[in-house]
């Protein structure tokens, strides 16, 4: 595979101050990317037969196969312009006003084309010099797989006014209009805004007696924002798919069909909410503390949903959810003696997510990921909904004593009889957890001693569950994960892992058996450095030399059995499944910086 990417980025700006208090700045950005790749497909299929009738590890090449070559090219263009007019005015010694007017547009375009061809008469050598489609002549079969484009734009205008009185009483208000080409012309604009107020309490005279408080500000804000991310272009139009064909004899005719269920009225997803909090510095600025409480309502969540009795997905603005929580960060920085400095800062947040309504005109259940996730008023969005494992039926006698499915057998997972009717049925499914982390936290510690410095950064989440969907796949009949080594084989052998028999369907139902805690704590960064700055180095013209050793994502503490503990939230209503998520790489760096 030969892959080449070219990218040109640039921006120009002009700034102009006039009439004393005005500043005007125009900025133009351009981003042009071009990608070309050529590749070789040695044989269309290679089957490694691991013991299903054939010899183990026998490699089977299908007959009638020859290699193919492929080429692909893509290009993308992005243009952005920002124009901002500032008016900053100190009216007198006490009153200060700042206003900003801005206007911005963004335009994205792109296209790609690719194709392959397979030479049926000769074996194309695996040599990049031949990785061009024309190495096989036109009479050979080929697929001109793709040729498509993208075009979307966004525009926005905003006005912001802030006023403060003696730097103590602060007020600001913003209003903005955002437009996106992703929505129909009558819905493409949304109006959003915010108002905020702050009070620097520590500047008041009555605070003089609280000597230890260096700074205290109380703030509150209310506002709305709009979001158009996460949906494809032009969805409001009734898109067609012409991938389908009718075949009569060997004649092929193109068909057209709806690509999705269209909703012309899709519009910005809106977040509206309040933030209140305070910022504080104490004890000669050595300690800082920030606390924010927020309560935000998101309405018209943009999401693709499964609709009853249809294979097409509907892209809609769903109902309303509330995210409420608290964010706290605190830090301490100080020195011990002349040579030792240290600092520690931590942050913590708690978020509670609650669905208020699933949306008007939705008379079906919002299920995600084949029913593992459910979105319901009063619960967390996209929560895990299934059976709760109580153990394993150890024997026929054990089975007879417990609620079970009519076809349960010893070695099967036993589930909780939630409705207490003595048998297990789909009505015994219940809330099993949320895929969204409830707690986020992190800590950063810095130490310095003479020329040495040391940093450690920790980060983690807690309160969520991860669905090990990769283990539920029933088609892999020979590959299991190590947890299956502990499978139930006879009474008393396991109360967690069911019998190793993939015809026992009850064990493949979505249940807490396939959930694991998503909590993790990770050393995000670990760094040790040594800085040299002395006469010796200065003599040879070096001001400053620094050596460091750094590791990123060095250690994870978690109970997650997958490659990565980070929950995969692709769809907000069907997230949290680990189907073999790509691991976060651990990166070790040894560095040497010289400053001349």
């Amino acid at each position: 595979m030969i892959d080449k990417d070219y990218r040109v980025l640039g921006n120009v700006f002009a700034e102009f101050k006039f009439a004393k208090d005005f500043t005007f700045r125009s900025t133009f950005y351009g981003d042009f990317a071009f990608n070309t790749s050529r590749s070789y497909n040695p044989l269309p299929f290679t089957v490694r037969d691991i013991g299903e009738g054939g010899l183990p590890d026998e490699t089977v090449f299908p007959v009638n196969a020859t290699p193919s070559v492929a080429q692909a090219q893509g290009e993308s263009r992005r243009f952005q312009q920002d124009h901002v007019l500032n008016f900053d005015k100190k009216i007198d010694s006490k009153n200060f006003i700042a206003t900003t007017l801005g206007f911005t547009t963004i335009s994205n375009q792109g296209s790609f084309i690719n194709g392959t061809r397979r030479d049926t008469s000769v074996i194309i050598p695996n040599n990049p010099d031949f990785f061009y489609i024309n190495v096989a002549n036109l009479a050979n079969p080929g697929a001109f797989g793709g040729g498509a484009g993208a075009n979307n734009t966004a525009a926005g205008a905003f006005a912001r006014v802030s006023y403060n009185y003696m730097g103590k009483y602060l007020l600001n208000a913003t209003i903005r209009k955002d437009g996106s080409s992703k929505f129909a012309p009558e819905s493409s604009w949304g109006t959003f805004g915010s108002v905020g107020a702050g009070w620097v309490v520590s500047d008041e005279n009555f605070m003089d007696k609280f000597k230890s408080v260096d700074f205290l500000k109380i703030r509150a804000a209310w506002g709305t924002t709009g979001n158009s991310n996460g949906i494809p272009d032009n969805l409001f139009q009734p898109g067609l798919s012409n991938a389908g064909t009718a075949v009569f004899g060997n004649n092929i005719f193109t068909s057209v069909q709806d690509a999705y269920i269209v909703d012309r009225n899709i519009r910005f997803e809106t977040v509206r909410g309040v933030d209140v909090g305070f910022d504080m510095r104490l004890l000669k600025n050595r300690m800082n503390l920030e606390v924010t409480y927020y309560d935000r309502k998101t309405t018209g969540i943009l999401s693709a949903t499964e609709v009853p009795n249809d294979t097409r997905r509907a892209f809609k603005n769903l109902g309303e959810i509330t995210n409420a929580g608290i964010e706290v960060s605190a830090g301490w920085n100080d020195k011990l003696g002349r040579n030792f400095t240290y600092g520690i800062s931590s942050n913590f947040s708690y978020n509670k997510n609650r669905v208020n309504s699933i949306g008007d005109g939705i008379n079906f259940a919002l299920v995600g990921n084949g029913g593992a996730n459910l979105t319901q008023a009063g619960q967390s969005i996209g929560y895990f909904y299934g059976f709760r494992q109580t153990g394993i039926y150890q024997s026929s006698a054990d089975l007879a004593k417990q609620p079970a499915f009519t076809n349960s057998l010893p070695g099967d997972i036993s589930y909780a009889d939630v409705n207490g009717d003595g048998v297990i049925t789909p009505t015994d499914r219940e809330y099993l957890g949320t895929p969204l982390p409830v707690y986020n936290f992190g800590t950063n510690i810095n130490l310095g001693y003479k020329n040495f410095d040391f940093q450690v950064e920790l980060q983690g989440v807690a309160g969520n569950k991860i669905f090990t969907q990769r283990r539920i796949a029933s088609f892999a009949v020979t590959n299991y994960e190590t947890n299956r080594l502990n499978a139930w084989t006879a009474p008393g052998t396991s109360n967690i892992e069911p019998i190793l028999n993939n015809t026992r369907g009850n064990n493949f139902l979505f249940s807490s058996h396939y959930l694991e805690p998503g909590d993790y704590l990770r050393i995000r960064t670990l760094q040790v450095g040594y800085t040299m700055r002395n006469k010796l180095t200065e003599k040879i013209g070096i001001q400053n030399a620094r050596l460091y050793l750094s590791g990123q994502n060095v250690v994870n503490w978690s109970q997650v059995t997958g490659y990565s503990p980070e929950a995969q939230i692709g769809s907000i209503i069907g997230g949290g499944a680990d189907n073999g998520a790509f691991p976060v790489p651990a990166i070790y760096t040894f560095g040497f910086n010289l400053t001349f």
Partner: protein
Amino acid sequence: MKNIFNNPRQLLLFLAVFFAIGFTSSCKKFLETPRQGAYTEDNYPYPGGSGPYDQFIFGAYNDLRAFGVHAIGFLNATSARSDDADKGSTAADGGADYNGFDNFPVIINSGLANGLWTGHFALIQKCNNTLFQIKNNTQITATAEIKIQTEAEARFIRGYAYFNMVRMFGRVPLFDSLVTDPAAQNNRPQSSPAQLYTFIEGDLQFAAANLPLSWDPKFVGRATKGAASGLLAKVYITQSKWGLAMGAANTVINSGQYDLTTNYTRIFEEAGENSKESVFEIQATADASVPTNNGIQYTQVQSVRGSGIWNLGWGFNTPSAQLAAAYEPNDPRRARTILFTSTPTVPGFTIYGELTPNGLPNPRYNQKVYTEASRRASVGSQSGWWMNVRILRYADVKLMMAEAANEVGGVANATAARDALNEVRARARIGAPSGTLPDITSLDQAVLRDAIRQERRVELGMEHDRFFDLVRWGISGPVMQAAGKTNFNPSRDNLLPIPQQQLDLSAGVLTQNPGY
């Protein structure tokens, strides 16, 4: 003019403001970005000519080849569930989902059952969309004849889809037209089998009245009057409406379009596609450039699961020992239907005379989907996506006529029934030693009934009718017990479960079938 811009910075500023104003004034246009490289309903360059609604109804033909409609789910539901076939492949392959179709019950969260459900509703939606376009699309000008013919075509496929659905699931929601807002209108309760059958009959009667007898050769395999009448006959015999079934079957027989001259072996070959035997078959094709997209996976899922040149497919839906034992002595249809894996003592041969290897994972495979080696080589694929699916054959129509006539009774009808039965047997014995498959002589209703049922089994072996036949004859319970499928409980297993995924999605609007 000379002093307006006293430095270059000011000039740039002026230009910036100028452009900004320009963009602002054209903002409405700026935010209208045309869809790139894909059509919408409003700008599709509809081709004129013979069938201006073709692109819509062709979507339904496309879906007839869908994995959810006519691949492994369909084969499991119609064949592996019966006494004639087993799950096949390796013991663990397919897991609980596939095993449920063989050993019962089908699991409530079966992915295959769910695929059948959504696949058929997608197919029905394409038909309803075609009907909607005929009624409402003012951009298309078409003659009244074309409109009626296209309506008939859409209603044929819709009737077929609902006929499969009612036999598989019993009660399903009824969509008699395109809903304008599926998100608001798709969640509807199930209709009863009686309501569904009334609807299906209406569709197929309209189709039978208004479809052409045949099509231009470039449209071979499109829905015809014969296909609609033949399917209608099957709908009637399923409900024991014997007189109507006889009439519908006779419409096909008297149409002059079909006969039994095609050799039984030839019918299932690539070269036998769309023969005089074919009343309705799903069309598929493949070539070296497009080996799968215009084909169907129906063949691959049930083809020989070997290695090397015998790696032809997944090996599901294998003929059972009971089916192998069901044939009369020397019946050539046994070897045409069942591909035997060679054993150290008994060699197995394909219809083309190739010796099968020893030790394939299954003792028997469906030979009716065995592909020609030369075709595999020319397409560059082992997987047989080009094989048409024989949905309705003329022999089936003959046997439906025989069955219906025998049930209606009377000497004339019994004679017609016996004669039709013997015509089918006469073709089957071509090339066999004399004395094979002798003519049935009795006119006794009970004797003929048994003979016709037996004939359907062997004539239509591995052709998706056996399970539904057992159910409509009311003998699925004892037959399955006798075949060793002892978990089978007719009060539950005659129908598939309503997929749990659909029950969940419906938020209580759909209800589960009895026993699940």
